[in-house]
Structure formats: C-alpha cells, structure tokens
C-alpha cells in the first residue's frame, strides 16, 4: 500500500516534470540518440557478420558438432568407407576428384580448378591434388600443358547421401541430387555458384573428362556426358560439382582410386559406431593415417571478430559518453531550476529518496525512449539496406534484426539514463528544505 502510494506519486510527479519540459526532454533524447544508435549498429553488424561468417564456415566445413574424418586414399579405403557409410542416415561419405568439362584435349581456362576470377591469367601450369584429409588444392605442375581452350576444371565431389544435413547448402536453382533409385548412366551434377558461372560464361560442350588436368588425359579416361540438375550456394569459390558417389565411381577407372580423396561427415552418434569399424576394416597401418576432428567453428571464429568488435564498441561508447554528458548537463540544469520545487515538495512531506528516484526515473525514461527510437531506426535501416544492396549482397537479404542488438540498445539507454541521472538525483536529494524560507 505504502509502496503503491509512492509509485503512483512518483509517476504523477515525474509525468508533470516531463510534460512541463517537453522540449528539454526531446533535446536530451537527441543528445543521446547517436550514442545509442552507434551501440545498436555495432552490435547488429557484429552479430550479422558473425552469422554470415559462421554460415560460410558451416557450408564449407560443416555445422558445429559434425565429426569430420579424412581417410587415406586407396582402393581399400574407398570400398571400406562405402561399405560402412552408404545408406547410413547419420553419415555421408565424400569422394573428391578433379574433372574437366568442355572440349577434350585442351588445357582448361582455370587449370587446377582455381576460382574463375583467376581464369585466363596464364601463369604456370597447375594441377589439382587431393590429400588424405579430403582437401583438394592446386599445385604447380611440371607437365607440358596442351593448348588452352574451351574447358573448365571442376572439383567433382561424389556424395553417398544428402550432405546438406552437415553442410547447409542453399539451393539456388533446379533440384538437389536424388539418392533414390538406381545410379544413372549419365552422371547428374549439382553445380555450385562458381561452376554455374563457368557454364554461363563459357560455351561448354557437355563432355566431361574425369581425372583432372594434372594427369595427361590417357586414352582410357572416361568421357561421360553429365546432366546438370541444379545449382547450390556452397560457400566455396572453387568451381565444384556434386554428384552421387555411385554415379561418379561408375566412371572412375579402378586405377584412379589412388588419386582420390575420401572424407566422411557424420553425427557424433554415427561416428561412435562407424569410426571404430572403419579402423578395424583398414587394419592398423591405414587406420593410423585416419584423421578425425569435430567442427567447432563457433568457438574458433569467436575470437576472430572480437578485436574489431571491441574497437567499434569503444568508439560507440565514446559517442554514447558524449550523449551522457549532454543528458547530464540538461539534468543538472533542470535540477538547478527546480531547487524551489524540490524544497517545497520535501516541505509538504515528499521523501527525499522519492524525489531522487523521480529525477533518476525521468532520465531512465529518456534513455529507454531513445533506445526504442534507435532500435526502430536500426530495424528500418537494416530493412532499407536489404532493399537497396540486397541484390548484390545476399548476406543483407531478408536479414532479421538481431535481438542482441535490441538488448544492447536497451542496455545502452539504461546505462546512459543511470549515468546521466545519478548526479542530478543526488543533487536533488541534497536540497535543504529551508530554501523555501530564504528566497
């Protein structure tokens, strides 16, 4: 009862104070606005940047918690892995190899499967090499290259199941691979953006030479005619095509198994049964070359953006501080102006703590209103940025305003309110009542 009386009195007195000084309240908000907006913007961009980075890493490496196993190359490994993984719901095996699509017998525009922006740049002859951890990269080749021509080198990744449960690719056109039914005689490909770009940039005959540019196309190299069924965004800048592993293996000569790189992506549960079984199958020597790690990108990239984040936070805090100085200045001036009112209110029995609380509450309300305004501007700004730049920056498309930025804005508003209101509140509490008799 006593408490509600206080609260209600505080609301009435505070409301009268704000209404009597609307312009001043507004000016305080303006002084604070940029600071709070800066905090909101920094927090929002840091969260969004983190998310984008994480999304890229997830597409490239796998979601956090995914167990990644690299298997040493070799015919035994391939069959062991396929045996264990094919059809397993919690595991997907990948087998990567290079392939050239285009006119046979020519050096591709991007030897070694490098990103297209390096295409047609000459330089040393490159070849694609895949290691035992499932990573493929380009290396300088000593072989004498055939003439360059209308061909593109791709990384071809055979998958035994839907890899998207671990690496959340975004489907951009057509459809994803269909793992039901018998393998098709003409391999069905899903291209990544870079590979799709190659197809639109160059007039490529639909002929594929599996094996890559590094190895001189031997007379025995298979020349299947692939069908492109879809396109995905996989976060990679290397032209890549995904294909059913069984369709790929059908075309791969047994001898090329040595050049292949195999990997397994699986859930921890699946790994618990598959990894030991794989070790047993491969025997002690090959098992020793198995490489296993669990994806923990969130933790790893945590540090990467922190430095920048704190620098920006420092600058935003400075802007906020200027705003606090503004609100403090206005607050002190207001209390100075209200000395008689406060003395009188104390004379009629208003507790000093209540008056101090009202002064503090007024600036807190200003802080919160400012935070609301800054958050609103942030939401609208993000929306507008998506509309304007979204076309060429997909990371800005349909981005929801991160709640963390809202929290940061409210916190900044509250902190500014407390900092800006505390001194005026203390000053208000110290006004002697006898002021009303000395005037």
């Amino acid at each position: 009862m006593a408490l509600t009386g206080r609260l209600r009195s505080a609301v009435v007195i505070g409301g009268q104070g704000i209404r009597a000084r609307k312009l001043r309240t507004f000016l305080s908000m303006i002084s604070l606005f940029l600071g709070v907006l800066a905090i909101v913007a920094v927090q929002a961009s840091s969260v969004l940047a983190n998310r984008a980075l994480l999304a890229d890493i997830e597409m490239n490496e796998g979601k956090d918690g995914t167990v990644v196993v690299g298997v040493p190359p070799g015919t035994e490994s391939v069959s062991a892995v396929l045996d264990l993984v094919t059809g397993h719901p919690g595991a997907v095996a990948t087998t990567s190899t290079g392939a050239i699509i285009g006119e046979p017998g020519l050096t591709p525009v991007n030897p070694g499967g490098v990103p297209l922006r390096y295409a047609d740049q000459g330089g040393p002859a490159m070849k694609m090499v895949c290691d035992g951890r499932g990573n493929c990269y380009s290396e300088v080749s000593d072989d004498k290259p055939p003439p360059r021509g209308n061909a593109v080198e791709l990384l071809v990744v055979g998958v035994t199941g839907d890899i998207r449960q671990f690496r959340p690719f975004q489907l951009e056109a057509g459809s994803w691979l269909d793992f039901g039914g018998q393998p098709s005689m003409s391999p069905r490909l899903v291209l990544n953006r870079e590979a799709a770009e190659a197809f639109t940039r160059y007039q490529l005959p639909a002929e594929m030479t599996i094996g890559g540019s590094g190895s001189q196309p031997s007379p025995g190299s298979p020349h299947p005619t692939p069908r492109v069924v879809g396109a995905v965004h996989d976060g990679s800048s290397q032209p890549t095509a995904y294909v059913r592993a069984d369709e790929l293996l059908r075309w791969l000569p047994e001898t090329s198994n040595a050049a292949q790189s195999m990997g397994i992506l699986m859930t921890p549960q699946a790994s618990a049964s598959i990894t030991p079984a794989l070790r047993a199958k491969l025997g002690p020597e090959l098992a020793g070359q198995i490489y296993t790690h669990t994806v923990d990108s969130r933790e790893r990239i945590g540090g990467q953006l922190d430095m920048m984040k704190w620098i920006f936070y420092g600058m935003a805090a400075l802007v906020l501080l200027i705003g606090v100085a503004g609100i403090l200045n206005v607050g002190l001036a207001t209390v100075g102006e209200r000395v008689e009112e406060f003395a009188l209110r104390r004379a009629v029995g208003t507790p000093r703590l209540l008056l101090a609380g009202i002064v503090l509450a007024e600036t807190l309300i200003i802080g919160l209103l400012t935070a609301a305004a800054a958050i609103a501007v942030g939401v609208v700004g993000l929306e507008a940025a998506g509309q304007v730049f979204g076309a060429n920056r997909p990371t800005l498309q349909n981005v929801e305003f991160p709640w963390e930025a809202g929290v940061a804005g409210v916190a900044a508003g509250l902190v500014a309110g407390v900092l800006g209101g505390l001194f005026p509140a203390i000053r208000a509490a110290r006004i002697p009542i006898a002021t009303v008799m000395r005037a």
Partner: protein
Amino acid sequence: MTVTPIQQPLIQLNGVTKTLKGQGEPRPILSGVDLTVRAGESVAILGRSGSGKSTLLSLIGLFDRPDGGQYLLHGADITRVPERRAARLRSQEFGFVFQRFFLLKHLTAAQNVAMALVNGQGWLARRKRRARVLAALEQVGIAHLAKHRPARLSGGEQQRVAIARALVRQPRILLADEPTGALDTETGALVIDVLHAATDRGCGLILVTHDHAHANRMGRVVRLRDGLLVPDRAGVAV
C-alpha cells in the same frame, strides 16, 4: 480568567538551541527557546530581520533539527526524529505558508493544491483527491479559480492557493512565515482572515510577521530577541 481543561499541548519546545554555521563563524541563532502551542491556539512571532524567526519555524516544521533542548509533538519527543519519519510528520501534522507562494507555474491552482496529496505518503484516488482539493479551495474562497494557472492569479489569490495547499491534508498546526510580506495591506488582512479561520477548527497557528495589526489578531504575541522568545505584551505567558 476561566480555567480550561488540561489539554495535551500540540507542540512544546523546551530550551531549544540552534547554531548556524554559514561561511563565517558558527553563529548561535536560538539560545534556549521555550514555546507551547495548544489546539486552536494562535501565536504571533515578532522580531527583527535576521533574529532567527524562520530558523525557529524550520525547527518546528521539522525541516531541520535543534542542536539542544527538547521538542515534543503531542507529548512525544521528536527532537532527533530521523528524516523518513520527519517527512511523514511534515505531511500529516503541518501545513506551511511562506512569504513567497511557491506555486508551480505549469500546474493549475487545483494541481498545486493536490501537490500536498501527491507526496508519496499514502494515496488517494483521483475522485477523493479532487473533492479534498475543492474543499480546501472553497475554504480559502477561490474554488472558482481551480483551473487557473498561477500566472493568471493575483498575489492574494496565489497566496490563498498556497494556504489551500497547506490546509488540504487537514494539518494540526499551520506554520506561516511572513505570509503577507509580499501583499498589500488589504489583501494581507484577507489572508490573515483565512489563516485565522483555520484555528476555529482546532488547528494551531504560528504566524511570523512584522505587522503589529496582524500580530494582534492572534491569541498571543511573542518576540524573538537575542535567541530567546519573550512575551510581547505584559501579562501574556509564553
């Protein structure tokens, strides 16, 4: 002289002292003030400017505490009452009127009066509050000005709003520090009428004034001189 039944004094000051320290030396202002005020009694305090009349009222009104002596309210010792309780007592027991009116210019007359009700000491619903405020404005004769802001009121009307503000909680004691100091003689007399009327309802009144005519309308007149309260008229007890 008729003998009135023994009645608990509203307030009783026994040998109250107060020293104020400004910029210079600490200066004893009150050096042993005795004063008793009963319900319905009115007391005028005269004294030169700077003699300590306001200081004395600020002790009685619990704006401040005495350095020495004893202060009883309804017989209870409140010489060293803590600030929280003092605030409650100021709200419940005292009404204050000052030389300047101290009306908040952005509030109407009614809202200015209601200020004494909206002070964190209990809560009255809006309708009850309005009724009380109107009754107080009625009591000082300006109910028709309830919606006016101070800027539209004359000095006498403003002081009557201030008196309504002092009366709205139905205090036991009214403390008035030179309430007519800023008013012309005629208006001042009207204000004294309004204050005096409150004593008819059993309210105690302590009036600090320089005006002998106003002082003489009180039941008793005392003078503050050299830090002591002395009778101003022969035969009248302090």
